């Protein structure tokens, strides 16, 4: 859960970032879209402890993290839809992704559709952990997601599964989520190397 020392250290770091314009350190954890960090009034004991304006800074960070984690959820819901329903317009990818990630996602969906492959089932996000935040425009939050794909299958035109033998049932994915003017929050990068989820 959220009210742990790790979270307090992270917020202390956020405040340091807000003052010093540097990148954020570690670990705001959200177990669900509604379970995002709230105001933290506990004593961190950190040398970067908050000045008097810390509560507003923390609130802004909480808001950004909440928006980013919600965007990650939307991203996976949208990609599930794109890969499951070949009639879903590719332009829908632009609602949740931008930049390199948008290009890559469109290409992935194109290739799957061309090969007449289709996803069944949906991914489950078992944890979302904010690992960094920089609220200077454009605001950016990095998130680690534990993605459970145990209920996902990908089948070819004959209905046969094309999954790799030994596919991990859950993997850690590193995401970068950016807020840009006129576009809102979108995923700009994802990295998955097959790392197991922590814990």
């Amino acid at each position: 859960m959220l009210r742990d020392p790790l979270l307090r250290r992270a917020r202390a770091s956020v405040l340091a970032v807000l003052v010093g314009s540097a990148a954020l350190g570690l670990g705001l954890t959200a177990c669900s879209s509604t379970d995002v960090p709230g105001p933290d009034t506990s004593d961190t004991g950190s040398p970067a402890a908050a000045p008097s304006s810390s509560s507003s800074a923390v609130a802004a960070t909480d808001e950004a993290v909440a928006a980013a984690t919600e965007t990650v959820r939307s991203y996976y819901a949208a990609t599930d839809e794109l890969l499951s329903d070949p009639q879903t317009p590719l332009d829908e990818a632009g609602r949740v992704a931008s930049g390199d990630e948008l290009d890559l996602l469109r290409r992935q969906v194109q290739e799957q559709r061309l090969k007449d492959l289709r996803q069944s089932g949906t991914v489950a996000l078992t944890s979302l952990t904010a690992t960094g935040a920089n609220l200077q425009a454009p605001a950016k939050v990095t998130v680690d997601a534990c993605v459970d794909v145990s209920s996902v299958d990908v089948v070819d035109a004959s209905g046969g599964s094309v999954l790799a033998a030994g596919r991990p049932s859950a993997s850690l994915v590193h995401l970068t989520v950016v807020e840009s003017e006129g576009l809102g929050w979108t995923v700009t990068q994802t990295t998955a190397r097959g790392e197991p989820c922590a814990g």
Partner: protein
Amino acid sequence: MRWLILRAATAAAAAVMVLAAGGLFSPATAAVPVTTGASTTCLQLDIRTGYCRLGAEAPEGTSQPGSAGTTSPRRPASAAACYSDWSNKVVPCSGSLGSWSNSRDCYVQPSAANPLPGSLLFEGHTDGAVYSCVPDIGDQFQLSYSFWSATPPAGPDPAQLAQEAIATLGLQAITVGIVPEAGAGSVGLVGMPVWMWVADPTATTFGPATGTAAAGGVSVTATARVDHVSWSLGDGTTVTCGRGTPYTDAAGASRSPDCGHVYSRTSVGQPGNAYPVTATSHWTITWAGGGQTGQEQMDLTSQVDVQIGEVQAVVTG
């Protein structure tokens, strides 16, 4: 083979190699494990299928050229201007779907939907315009999409369009005119004049020939003409001529005024007892369009076999 797009961020890894393996989902060939022993590591896993989408890197302190996958260009180096990775072939650089974009692997043109700023398709921008991207294989697989661009996407390279224009010319080697005539039924004589010329010259065999290719508002016109013809007579002699003069019976045993030869030995002993005569037409092709000009050379060759004999005087009585 299809190649996956290197993600910019991960492409920074020096040892990254893109795995070919037939794209995202080719179980028979792309079964790249997430980790192969201690030597390779997947840099980008498709978590849904379990296949590695992006390369493998050698461990620190080692170098494994040629192992763990190989790199190669997405398209043949000799491929012409517009090449589709979807269909693995050269495609027209323009058509009803727009102008071909190699980088996007699709035809691009302003979006027919004509969305306004504020639309999702503007990707948060307020300037520029939205364009459609449609693969050459059409949209039966729902593969097309829209994208925003501040400026109109670059049209085709005029030099590349010039290649299309040249291809439309249908240039051919000359039809060889030669006396003595080629073939087994005709034999020339040592010491007698040989006439060579371009028979029945046309725009496609001697020029000038003109062709145009256009795409994305760029039009390139190419003009080709034969600069000269090199005749290799098969006896070690090469003669450079223009069009030449066709032989007529009225010329009798006179020499060609501009393109001739005299053999000093018979062709007996040559392969087929004939001299191989090749006529190489050297084309000069100039092109202009899209604010650029260029010139190219092209050689086209014809060959015939000519028999040369000799008259031997027989003294009797």
